[in-house]
């Protein structure tokens, strides 16, 4: 409970700031749409190929968009050193990181809600019958992306070449989550659709491990 209050306060601040600027959601959405449209026109997939390659393309696009979106989450605190003000406050440092993770999750989730219908149309996929189970995969996959991405955005924000460093750190580490998300999504597009408990388990384990590591070492992430 001691953590919930500052997390709520900081999450509200993140959402309010984004609502005013609309920088992160707008750029992420545009980027993912461009990638999916380009993939669609480049490969011109048939219905079978869409079911086979669509999930991988979707998650790759989300991964690239995530690495683009996560980068400013800490660097935009640097212009007025507002992160220093948050570190000065009598709150656990992990509350700052957790609020950022939840905010990034919200931003990416909004982009996904808009993106999915476009993805279904472009790749001629029937997502509506599996939307509930697909939501579960998206939630777990997006959470994994946001946990790892936010942590590494915090680490790389103090480094030189930070724009290049984040994707270099992020992409290899997220490979298990990417594979599990793509495989679980592919199972939902088969006939009949099936939600793989194995891949869902992998995603849940991935999220739990990185959330625990973040909770244990969160205080060191924000130190100068």
């Amino acid at each position, binding site marked *: 409970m001691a953590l919930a209050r500052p997390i709520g*306060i900081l999450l509200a601040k993140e959402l309010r700031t984004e609502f005013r*600027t609309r920088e992160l959601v707008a750029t992420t959405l545009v980027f993912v749409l461009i990638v999916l449209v380009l993939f669609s026109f480049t490969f011109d997939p048939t219905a079978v190929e869409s079911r086979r390659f669509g999930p991988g393309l979707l998650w790759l696009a989300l991964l690239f968009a995530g690495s683009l979106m996560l980068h400013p989450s800490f660097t935009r605190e640097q212009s007025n*050193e507002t992160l*220093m*003000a*948050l570190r*000065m*406050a*009598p709150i656990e440092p992990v509350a700052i990181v957790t609020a950022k993770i939840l905010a990034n999750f919200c931003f990416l989730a909004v982009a996904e809600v808009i993106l999915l219908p476009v993805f279904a149309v472009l790749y001629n996929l029937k997502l509506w019958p599996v939307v509930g189970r697909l939501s579960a995969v998206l939630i777990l996959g997006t959470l994994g992306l946001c946990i790892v991405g936010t942590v590494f955005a915090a680490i790389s924000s103090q480094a030189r070449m930070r724009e290049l460093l984040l994707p270099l750190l992020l992409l290899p580490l997220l490979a298990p989550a990417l594979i599990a998300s793509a495989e679980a999504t592919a199972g939902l597009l088969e006939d009949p659709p099936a939600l793989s408990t194995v891949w869902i388990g992998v995603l849940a384990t991935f999220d739990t491990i990185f959330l625990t590591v973040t909770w244990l070492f969160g*205080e060191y992430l924000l130190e100068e």
Partner: protein
Amino acid sequence: MQFDKRYGARFAARDISLSIAPGECVALIGHNGSGKTTLLKAAALLIRPSAGRVQFSNVGANGAGENSLAIKRYIGFVSHSTLLYDELTAEENLVLFARLYGLDSAEECARAALDPAGLASRGNDLVRNFSRGMRQRLTIARALIAAPKLLLLDEPSTGLDRAGHQWLGAALASVAATGCTVMMSTHGASEVNAIVTRAVRLLSGSIVEDSASSGSPRAMLAAALAAHQEA
């Protein structure tokens, strides 16, 4: 406080040994890069000493943990930067920090803090539309919102005009009158120096002169001002 701070092989602070009594107002003077900001950040628990420790009334607080959180509640800090969110209004910035400091009725506290800073009529304006001087007033109002017992100021008169200097001097005088301990870096030329009871001069990360052991704070501040104007 008794500590060293090293970044790689370079010492930002070396053999710092400073004991400050409650209610003292200490001016840190010295050239750029002399270690004033490092000392203030260490006192604010923003940096972890490489050796030694910062201690508050017998409570050690070098890192995170229960002690640090309890101590942070009573520290106000004004940095070179504004520490404000440009995309939030002045009132929203103050409400945010009032809530993080666990104040009851944060909105009322924020409105009450805007008034003495002369920003009551601009509370609903975004900070990005403020002038440098207005931002600095808001920065100081933010640092004072939780009624700190230790106020740390890194060149607080930056960006303030003549009236702003006078406002800051009066604000700090009223804070000092409550028994709040104040430590600030200064170049010597400001109304805020009126409240100074002790001056400490730093050079290359070390304390080289302390008015508590020799000399007067006024003379040290005058010398610092002369040196600053020469530079």
